[in-house]
């Protein structure tokens, strides 16, 4: 269980990027739910915490694939693989994340030294 941030520092409609390995995005939806998913889009290295939160989905800020915060599923390409979801616990006003044990679907080049050209 990793402490993310105080609940009151994450207003509804906002996201927090937890600097884990790999990073995790924590969202507070407009209707008050808190979800955590992998922060890195499965298409390219983009931070989903910088994306656009709409209902229970976040749209990737780069190429508009949308991920369901409840399931991690992606709606349409260019991203093809889901992100992992992580359990969230709020205790004494602090948001904690319990990272998933499943293997992460990271985009090419992330975690590895980037190389190659177009």
């Amino acid at each position: 269980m990793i402490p993310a941030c105080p609940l009151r520092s994450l207003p509804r409609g906002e996201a927090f990027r937890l600097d884990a390995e790999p990073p995790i995005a924590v969202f507070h939806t407009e209707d008050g739910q808190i979800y955590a998913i992998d922060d890195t889009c499965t298409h390219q290295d983009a931070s989903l915490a910088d994306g656009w939160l709409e209902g229970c989905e976040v749209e990737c800020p780069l190429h508009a694939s949308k991920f369901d915060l409840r399931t991690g599923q992606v709606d349409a390409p260019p991203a093809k693989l889901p992100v992992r979801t992580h359990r969230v616990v709020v205790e004494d006003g602090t948001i904690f994340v319990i990272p998933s044990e499943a293997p992460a679907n990271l985009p090419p080049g992330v975690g590895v030294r980037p190389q190659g050209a177009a």
Partner: protein
Amino acid sequence: MSTTSLPPGPQQSLPPSLMSTLPGAYYTDPDVFALEQRRIFESMWFCAVRAADLPRPGAFKTVQVGTESILITRARDNSIRAFYNVCRHRGARISTEESGEVKRAFQCPYHAWTYDLDGRLVAAPNLTKMPDIDRVAYGLVNVAMREWLGYVWICLADEPPSFEEDVMGDVRTRLGDVAHIDNYDVAGLKVGRRIVYDVKANWKLIVENFMECYHCATIHPELTEVLPEFADGYAAQYYVGHGAEFGAEIQGFTVDGSSGLDRIPTVSQEQDRRYYAITIKPQVFVNLVPDHVIWHRMFPLAADRTVVECDWLYLPEVVDGGADIDRSVELFHRVNTQDFDACERCQPAMGSRTYADGGVLVPSEHHIGLFHDWLRGRLSD
């Protein structure tokens, strides 16, 4: 560029009735135009778009100001923002459209750097791996902006000149008092018609044409019918605070003198049945009549090409009510066409060897000399 030598003025002496115009090269020389772009259009307040053309957050327009393309949009808080249309990464144009609407961000089509409506860099590939990139410092570059009379004015100068002195000052010079234009509630009016003219002429020919009425009786039969005093050749711009009076049988400012639209209620008694004209340097012309306002914005694109966007503004209820504005618009649309045809007729002759020293101004045009003095002043030093 300080290496550009401006064409010299005429050498010969003139009879007292005449003053010289600018030499022909001022209207054709790309170096003069480049200097004008830098010292005038990129240095002064420039009237860019009608604020109502950006109805919602994310709506945008791009405009050419001097050598720069500027992106103007409305942010989430409804304020208007202007940016250089240049990606901070490797310089791609953010938008190549003249207008459009984004949902929530501008994304560069090259490597997908993504900017919010305040210009802040909000996302980019691998951005979280580069925490040292400041998202404001590498956001779109801001341009100074003012909203006045329902228009968005921008200024590319590092230190913009006083808007009150320059822009409002030109209105004051012509009308005697800025309050006189407030009576027309220009910001509260609505665009009833917009016509864009692509004029194959130097912008200064258009300014000079707009300043004088020596040509009115010859090329503007309809306008001279409505404003008989224009037949004497003295433009409304020759005097301070003078409005040309409608002819006795004229009912309204329309192509056939028939009655116009609903009068703007705050127009004063002394402004009724009169026509006022204002030049706001460097690229705006305004005509005020009791029932509408005609607002021209010039976009000088080359030494021999100027796009003029002209708005006919009426009371919102006139536009929304679907009133017939055709005869009202037609009068000045004809005037514009007649004027721009005249400017296009002059442009090819500006390069003639017989026009190297320029032409002459007759007494009813002598006030154009002030414009030439102003221009030379801006281009020298």
